């Protein structure tokens, strides 16, 4: 299965600042996704990161707040902009691994963000 890494693993930020989270995969994948997990909650899809084009955002998420880059098939970044304490969450990237039999989705280790 694809091996996914994320940087940073955690960060504490001041309100009004921005943080960029990196996601690196050890193989080329078509589909990459970004999820948010608010404290004590389940996961919510933020957007699909599309290589060579703008990301596709889910309802309630906008590009100005969560700009996403996908320069190639192994790498993506998510920026959390103009942060407020409500943005404190775990942010996870995932990939659909077409190398597996049934295209399972695998997740990175997550980035735990605390906004003060």
């Amino acid at each position, binding site marked *: 299965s694809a091996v996914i890494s994320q940087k940073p693993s955690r960060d504490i930020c001041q309100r009004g600042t921005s943080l960029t989270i990196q996601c690196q995969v050890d193989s080329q994948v078509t589909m990459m996704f970004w999820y948010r997990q608010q404290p004590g909650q389940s996961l919510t899809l933020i957007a699909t990161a599309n290589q060579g084009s703008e990301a596709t955002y889910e309802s309630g998420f906008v590009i100005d707040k969560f700009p996403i880059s996908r320069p190639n098939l192994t790498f993506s970044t998510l920026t959390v902009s103009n942060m407020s304490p409500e943005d404190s969450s775990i942010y996870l990237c995932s990939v659909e691994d077409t190398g597996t039999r049934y295209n399972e989705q695998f*997740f990175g280790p*997550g980035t735990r963000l605390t906004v003060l």
Partner: protein
Amino acid sequence: SQQGEEDPQALSIQEGENATMNCSYKTSINNLQWYRQNSGRGLVHLILIRSNEREKHSGRLRVTLDTSKKSSSLLITASRAADTASYFCATTRRNDYKLSFGAGTTVTVRA
């Protein structure tokens, strides 16, 4: 938005006992995947069951799927302290790669 509900929300068992948790969903699915999350870290993929399958096994894990009831169950046999985690089900619909997650079940295995 979450498609699924999971129950129970929390489960506490003794080491060696079995743990069963259930997941229900609302719309027709292509497949259903179960994940484990330890202490707010990343999700570990446990098992995928397709809509035309009824049961799958992987080690101490047994997953069932009843599409007529739109529900799935995850059974962990002979639980260990290391099984203490949150467990999530997630579904995909036909021709849609997006995962829709359930609320999760928190399992505590007491030594």
